[in-house]
């Protein structure tokens, strides 16, 4: 999946200027940069949602920023919406998505009666259920607590390791550096860095007009089990 020298204007403001971007299987690309840099527009272009674009619903699942379900459906019903492109209710795919996203136990709960982190995972399960090759996620961890954010990041990393491609807009640079395989930094509608997270971090910090500190003390991470520690 790729876009070549993409220019997008909203009114007379250029939102994207000559952006070229591609993503391959096994990649988890984090798109970072300040608000208004064009991250969401790039994601929408990849999803085929810009004028003249064509969505590929069977291959690409897109989760917009702050995605939620308007009705108080159950987690299983929301997940089943991911089967719309296939026009079926494939129960195996739906159960697999529920399990993969860790919401199997909540399957019959209503999405308005579970926590924000659980609801976000339910939305991910919806994207998962369509068995896409590519996940496009706009700020999927924006409103999650640290532990839920780590869980969702691990979920996306797992999807890429299994041969899928993930493109996610992320503001949490530390999490992006920890889980993503590549980091794209955008500023004013252009890509200013596109490399491994470790190399792209200084550019990402600079895009916010900030410096990267050399020492990074007291970062949160998921608890290690005894086996992993050994």
């Amino acid at each position, binding site marked *: 999946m790729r876009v070549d020298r993409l220019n997008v204007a909203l009114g007379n403001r250029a939102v994207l200027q000559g952006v070229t971007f591609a993503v391959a299987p096994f990649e988890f690309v984090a798109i970072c940069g300040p608000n208004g840099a064009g991250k969401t527009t790039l994601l*929408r272009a990849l*999803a*085929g*949602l810009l004028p003249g674009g064509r*969505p590929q*619903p*069977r291959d*690409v*699942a*897109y*989760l*917009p920023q702050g*995605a*939620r*379900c*308007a*009705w*108080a*459906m159950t987690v299983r*019903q*929301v997940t089943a*919406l*991911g089967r*719309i*492109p296939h*026009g079926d209710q494939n129960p195996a795919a739906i159960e697999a998505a529920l399990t993969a996203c860790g919401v199997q136990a909540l399957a019959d709960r*209503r999405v308005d009666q579970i926590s924000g982190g659980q609801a976000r995972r339910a939305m991910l399960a*919806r994207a998962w259920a*369509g068995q896409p090759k590519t996940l*496009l996620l706009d700020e999927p961890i924006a409103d999650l607590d640290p532990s839920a954010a780590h869980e969702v990041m691990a979920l996306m990393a797992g999807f890429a390791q299994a041969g899928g491609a993930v493109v996610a807009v992320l503001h949490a640079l530390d999490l992006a550096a920890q889980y993503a395989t590549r980091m794209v930094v955008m500023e004013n509608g252009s890509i200013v860095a596109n490399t491994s997270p470790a190399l792209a971090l200084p550019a990402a910090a600079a895009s916010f007009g900030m410096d990267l500190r050399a020492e990074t003390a007291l970062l949160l991470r998921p608890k290690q089990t005894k086996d992993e520690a050994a």
Partner: protein
Amino acid sequence: MKLAVVAIVVLAGLSLLLGAAGFGLPDADILWQLRVPRTALALLVGAGLGISGAVLQGVLRNPLADPGFLGIGGCAALGAVIAFYWGFTAAFPLALPLSGFLGATLGCVALLLVFSRAQSGPGLILAGVGVSALAAAALSLLLSAAPNPFALYEITFWLMGGLQDRTLMHLGLAAVPIILGCAVLLRLGPGLDALSLGEEAAASLGAPVARTLQLAVLGVALSVGTGAAVAGGIGFVGLVVPHLLRPWVGQRPGALLWPSVLGGAALLLAADMCARAAPLLLPLAAEPRLGVLTALLGAPFLVVAARRVAP
């Protein structure tokens, strides 16, 4: 679902037996000229209102959406009032529903023209608010300059909605557009399901968002506009029916369509039977207006539903 069909058949049977003279089997003339058209119209108009409410709530992702939002009913009322105003109704009995239908059609065209510029839920609401405000203003203008007090009385009476003295001609006029409108709306299920995730996510799922919205406007205009043309202003049915049904059939908007057709039909027929029975049971000089009854029955249901929805 089976239960609903049985309930409608029973209600319709009782409705044929219920008339101004009391309860019992009437002669064939009364049966065919009055009871059958009235019963069938109540079922048709109610079905159109019920599914229109379900579709609009689904399209706009808002449980407060009502077919009245789009102003199509207001345009039908305007057309009808114009027919009253210039005395067409005295010359030609079908002038009233026909001009109401014409008003609804013009309102639908205006709505689609305004709406084609901004094809999204908020755009639809704004277009509807504009159309209904314009219709209401024109209606007030005509009412304030009514030629004589009697015309004013008759217009106000008509605006309250009712199915008294409707004939087979009314039924013939209304049946095809309402059924067509319902058929258009019944096909929107998958699009509405996708839209519950928002317009962008729905588009990424391959749902034809703009087309779903346009067909929703068309179907609602056909069924609600025709309903208003033959029955006057009847509110609350489209708003209340989906609310009543959600606890039974679930929240998925696509699953709500057929039940809303049946629920709307049953509710309006029941309300019309209450209207007919009221003078027999209560010391009333005339039937209460149907539009007034649906509001009286609908509002308390809505209050209960609101208490349940509130977090």
